């Protein structure tokens, strides 16, 4: 190709693609989950279930909820990506 020199040839490595996708998609899912969850439950009401003396305020409650969801979705997303990428490829299985 004559114009190869004008193109940026940057490609993310497959690993970085996976990291980027996993982080971003789990973030989106966690954001949606947090929104829906806290539209129904008030963090202040929730903390009183665990411990009456626990008083962490709504700001911290929202943040804790969001990170809880994010850790969960990150785990799910990462594990799925990893399993798919490390699955045995039937095309390469020519052992006899």
């Amino acid at each position, binding site marked *: *190709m*004559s*114009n*190869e*020199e*004008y*193109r*940026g*040839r*940057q*490609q*993310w490595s*497959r690993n970085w*693609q996976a990291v*980027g*996708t996993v982080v*971003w*998609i789990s973030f989106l899912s966690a954001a949606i989950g947090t*929104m*829906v969850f*806290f*539209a*129904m439950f*008030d963090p202040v009401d929730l903390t009183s279930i665990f411990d009456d003396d626990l008083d962490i*305020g*709504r*700001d*911290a409650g*929202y*943040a804790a909820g969001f990170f809880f969801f994010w850790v969960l979705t990150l785990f799910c997303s990462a594990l799925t990506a990893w399993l798919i990428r490390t699955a045995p490829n039937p095309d390469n299985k020519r052992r006899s």
Partner: protein
Amino acid sequence: MNSEVDSARAQPAPMYASAEKIYPREIQGRYDSLRKLATVVLLGLFYGLPWLLWDGRQAILFDLPARKFYLLGLTLWPQDFPYLAMLLIIAAFSLFFFTALAGRLWCGFACPQTVWTEAFIWMEQVAEGTRSQRMKLDKAPWSFEKLRRKFLKQMLWITFAVWTGFTFVGYFTPVRELGVELVTFSAGGWATFWTLFYGFATYGNAGYMREQVCKYMCPYARFQSAMFDKDTLIISYDERRGEPRGSRKRSTDPKALGLGDCIDCTMCVQVCPTGIDIRDGLQYECIACAACIDACDAVMDKMNYPRGLVRYTTQHALDGYTTKLLRPRVFVYATLLLLLVAGLVTSMATRTPIILDVIRDRNSLYRELPNGMIENIYTIKLINQRNDARNFALSVAGVPGIVLDGVPEIIGVEGGGVLSLPFRARARRDDVHGIINIVFTVRDLGETDVLLHEDSRFLGPTPR
């Protein structure tokens, strides 16, 4: 796939083949002006809206600590979440509708990723100069000049990113107070954290990741082709007109040389922010920013050829058919969109600003009083979503002679207030057998036509 990439890498490296990043060339033209306008308007809205006042308070404030959303004159409560959900569904269908009609209009002109990348590239140009200057600077060894330019770029980027994070948090906490608090380092930990978090995300996405986000991380980029058909507006190179491509002198007649209109100047490739060659056909990396159209039009003008070798067109038009604007797909999306908008408007217009909830005490069935009465315990919850204080009266029907105890005749609830009040209902023993359905009614004393009903049950001894 992998082997393609590998073989491309293995090719003998021409000038910039191993360049680590894409240096989009700056251009001017119709679509570039349009995108700059979109950038200014959208960023203006984002940075300006939190500062807007309405009746002395922030016009748009998603007050999470107080669990209330202020949208101009409207106050939304957590109970109004379905409206938000519906709004998001409407946004999704609008995206489908516009994609079917006009392709990736969203990507090229309205996506935050594009808009902020545009702003960050502009700052990069201010600090480091044009495309060729930037390429040279990056290849040059470290010098004072390089340090100065890189430092200036980072300062611009970081300032802009922190301001972006601050504005974002300003949608959730009153922005004026937040500004003062951040400057005096007295902001709450979480407000500071989210400011930096969002700022850092902006910095990374718009400064470094750029088109990689569109290529690898964006779900819309992958599924937008499902909304495409042969009548969808796309940016395309007119192969029949352009090929065979080749350089030539301005004075020569391309027909005599057997050449098409493409002079193979590669300007369309140089301006592309995702680093693709539009002449290879429609590619999913293309964010339809139309930079290549501007670039090619300028070249065509110079060559005295007609514009539009690269242009907004449709597959049908390129193949010589007429483009149909109105087609089933468009009708379906439009109808769904209209229904959703109509539904949202109706439900918001008929929304009652008072919410009534009467809950029977679950811990006790009923109590027999010494005077031959049966007593049940309830809790009334009244939410006044209006901004002014209202007075209400509670009544009950369903059992003859039932009376309420512990409820004032006039229940006052302040504007935006929530009232929770336990009370008792009593009826004569002879009138109550087993479970009886009753109805509580709340009347707004200011407006006689506002009545709210809530079904409940009254329990008494089971008849033998």
